[in-house]
Structure formats: C-alpha cells, structure tokens
C-alpha cells in the first residue's frame, strides 16, 4: 500500500523536482554585466576607477544573488548586488505551468549600495519578461534611492505603481526589500568579515 502511494506521488513529485532544478538553474544562470556596473559605480562614486571583489563566502539570505564589494586602493567603498527577479510564469501571468518551459519569466537587476547598505542606484539590465517593460524606467527606479535595510515598502504607497507593469513592479520592490534586509543583517553581524 505504502509503495503504491509513493509511485502515485512520484508522478507529481518528479515534475515538481524538475521545476525546482530548472528554477535553480535560472537563479545561477545570469551573466553579470561587469563593465556596465563599473561605469555606473565610477559615475556614482565620482572616482576614476574601482574594483569589484565578489564575496564568495556563503551569506544567509543571498541564495542566488551575487554580492560584490566595491574597493578603491584597497579601501571598501560600498557594495553591488546582482539578482534575478521572477515575475510571471512563463507563458504569461495567467498561464498554467507547463513542464517543457522555464517556469518563470524573469529579469535581472543590480543595485549599488553604500557601506551601510543604503540603496544608491538600481538598474535593470536584462529584461526577459513579455510585459511590464515600464519598470526599466530610470525615473521609476530612482524611487529606491535612499532605501535602508529593514525598510518596508508597498507598491502604491511608498513606491508609486506603474500601469502596465504591476507584477514586475511588485516583484522588484519585494526583492529589493528582501536583499537590503539580508545585507543589513550581514553588515550588522560582528562575525561577518567586511
């Protein structure tokens, strides 16, 4: 009886496991536009050059995201965080999951943060969702400047909603809140190596 149950559930579990693997692949799959990040860092920090050093030590809360420290002549200047945001399911927000597809539409973004974890700049660099391109607007992304760790944000309140991009706007807002909070925890942890 028990065996029968397992074989029965495996039909459900196997595709689910497949989806998990695929989404894991998504998470790790993005390319980091180092030269673009460097351009933005140089512009923002008003320096001639900077060095991005990837923090490879596993940090709680950063599964999937890449964190870099910005260094200039050996001195830390701030951080860069690169992450992938999942918006709607592939095939559209209303579509049912199809196993032959990547399960989620997504876009990639990076943010430049101060040494205290305050957001200084946000840019979306790889938009792969079918709709909601309006969130790429620099004017809209400027709303996140000054956001600090543990700050709660609601689309439609602190963050102005944008028509045609409701889901993408909510997705990136939630991700920025979660990433800045994790970074804040990491920075305030005395055991973390800066």
């Amino acid at each position, binding site marked *: 009886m028990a065996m029968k149950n397992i074989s029965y559930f495996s039909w459900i579990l196997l595709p689910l496991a497949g989806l998990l693997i695929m989404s894991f692949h998504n998470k790790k799959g993005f390319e980091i536009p180092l030269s673009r990040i460097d351009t933005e860092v140089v512009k923002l920090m008003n320096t001639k050059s900077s060095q991005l050093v990837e923090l490879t030590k596993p940090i709680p809360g950063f599964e999937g995201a890449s964190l870099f420290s910005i260094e200039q002549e050996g001195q830390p200047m701030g951080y860069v965080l690169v992450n992938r945001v999942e918006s709607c399911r592939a*095939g*559209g*927000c*209303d*579509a049912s999951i199809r196993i032959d597809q990547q399960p989620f539409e997504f876009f990639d973004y990076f943010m430049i943060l101060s040494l205290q974890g305050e957001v200084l700049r946000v840019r979306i660099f790889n*938009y792969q969702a*079918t*709709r909601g*391109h*309006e969130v*790429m*607007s*620099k*004017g*809209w992304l*400027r*709303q996140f400047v000054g956001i600090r760790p543990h700050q709660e944000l*609601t*689309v*439609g*309140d602190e963050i*102005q*909603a*944008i*028509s*045609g991009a*409701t889901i993408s706007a909510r997705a990136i807002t939630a991700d920025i809140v979660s990433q800045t909070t994790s970074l804040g925890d990491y920075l305030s942890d005395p055991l973390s190596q800066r």
Partner: protein
Amino acid sequence: MKYWKSLTLIMTISLTFVFTAHAQNAEYGLSNTVSNLLKSDRSLSFGGYGQIDYNKPFGNNTLQNGNLDVHRLVLMFGYRFSDKLSLVSEIEVEHVQEIYIEQAFLNYSFAHYLQVRAGLMLVPMGIINEYHEPTNYHGVERPLIDTYIVPTTWREIGIGFTGTIPEMALRYQAYLMNGFSSYNGTAQLSGKNGLRKGRQKGAESIMLKPVLAFRSEYYGILGLNLGLSAYTGQTQSSLYKSLNRDDETAITRADSSVVSIKMLGVDIRYQRKALEIRGQFYHTWIGNALEYNLFTASSGVNNDLGSTMVGYYAEVAYNIFYRAKFTKTKLVPFVRYSVYNTQASVAEGFIENEDYQKEVITGGIDWTIVTGVVVKADVQLIKPKSSEGYSQAFDAGIAIWF
C-alpha cells in the same frame, strides 16, 4: 439649490460605502481596456465600460428638464490566437439603442518594441481619444476639447506599428489610416461641429489617399507622462467616384470638396501621491478652407469651416482621502479650465463666429469606490465669446470600467 440636494443625496449614498469599499492604489500612467485585453494570457478575454449620466442645465430663471441617459455601455472582446497574434474588438451601445464598432483590430507582436496593428483603430491623438473610458478622466462628460477639436471617439481603418522602447522610456504609434470624409453629397465639416461629422468610423468608408497619424509618449520621469501627437493628410470625398482622369473640370470640382488637415497635440500628465495635473493642447491647420467653404455653400450661404482650430485645457485634481486611514477609496475634487475655438482663424473674406470660441470651467468631485467604479458630480460653466454670461449645467453620473 436643488442641485446641492441631489449632490448631498449622492454623497450620502456614497458615504455608506466608504467603510466597506476599497480602491486599489493609484497607478502612474493610464490603463484602458485595450491594454488589459492585450495583456491577458487567456485565449478569450473580455472587458468593458459604461456611464449613466444625469445632465441638467440651470440658472436664468428658466425651468429645465434634466436628462437621464445610459450614455454608453461597451463590451470588449479579445482573442489570443497565439503568443504573438491577438484580436481586440470594442462594441459600443450609445443611448441604449445606437450600436457602433469602435475598435476591431489584429495585433501581431514581433517584440515589445515592434508590434503591427491592422483594422479599425483609434487615432492616437491626445489623451482622451485612446483612454476614453469614463474612469480615465475627471467629470461626468469627456472634456469638451476632446469632443469638438479632437472628435473622440475618433477611429478609422488603418495599419501601422506600435511599441515600447524601455531603454528610452518611450512608447510610439505610427499608423497609415483613412481620413475624414469632407463631402458626401453634402458638406461634412463645419465651423459648428468642426471635424466631428466627418468621421467615417470604418462604416462603408471611402478613401483615395490615406493619412498619417503618429504619437509618442515619454514616461522616464517618475509620475510624469509627456505626449506628442501628429496627424497629417487629406480628407476624402465622394466626388472622386468614377472620375475620368482627363476630366479636369470634374477633378477641380472634386478637389474643391476636400481639405488638408494637419493636427498637432501636446499633452502632459503628472501624478504623484495625492496630486494629479493634466494639460492638453491641440492645434489644427486646415488647408483649402476658402474653396471648400465656397464649394459647399448651401442655399447661397457659404460654409464656415475655420482655417485653424485650437483647444487647450489645464486640470488639477487632489485625492483628499490620500492619507485617510479609514478608507482606501479616493475622493478627488478637480477643476478644469478649457478654451477652444473651431474658428481660431478663418479664410480671407470670412468673419469669425464668436459663438464658436468657448471658455469652459468645470469643477466637480469624483469618488472612486474601487478601481473601475467612480461616482461623479460636477458643475460646468460655458461661455461663448458672443455671450456675456456663463451657461450653467449640473452633471452627475456613475462610471464603470473592467
């Protein structure tokens, strides 16, 4: 004072909903049913909008009947044939009994920056023609310049491109479309109605040469949307039917029955927190107005189509419930000042009719119960240049959109 009674009644009924109803948060940028249908991932989707109005002129010690009207009720159907190809259609019933097809087009999406559209489409001019759902503007009726200068709902059959270029925060539309009919046995254009009666609406319409319509929108600054619209082309005339190319007299005659139209529109929308500001400006140049007015003279009286038409408005609105803790609905008083003139200039030898130059002050309040349901009331004051005082009218209505 009776009008204040009806206003109070509406407010009282409205307030009973306040504590239970919830409006979604304000969005920056407008949505319409077309954008909703195209966004939908279902193969068959539908939406719609409608408005039921009460209009009553008052003042001048005159007894007046009010009008109660199901002004329009519209159903829109969308069908997604594939990931790339969709159909959008809009069927409108006006005043309970007049049926129109307002849109019916296919949209093929190559990518977000390039989509091809063909069929019966809205002419992309200004804000209201494309976003004509009653929940998209303040006040019970559409702004008057969007009736007399831009003849909303202005639609013709055409083909063209549209898309979004997110890197530049730009949207664009560029269509080749059918133009107005200026002559169909009688004159279709005039000083009184402007271009409005010339709309062919895709109904057995005639065309010799298409027109060009273009619009672009910039949304790169938070809360701001800037639009630029342009339209250029000739009107159509039934006199070109079966014309011998060598028959110069007949061709000259037909040429006198058409005008060239160039229209430029600039619009601005700004929405931040509780504040909403809107402005629109239209300028229309009409070529060949002199010959057209002489040719379309009826019983010895020349027609009076202007050589230029101008219209503009500025509007400020403020959501007084923005900080309210007890409700998520929006209560938005607004005021709009408009000026329009269908004879901003006239052909040589003609005299401007001062009845056509109007100043309009509209003030009212909109209460958005949820996104898509708005209860409205306003007072509209209209003064033609020829008149000393303002005519007054009270409007109230409900507006729905889904």
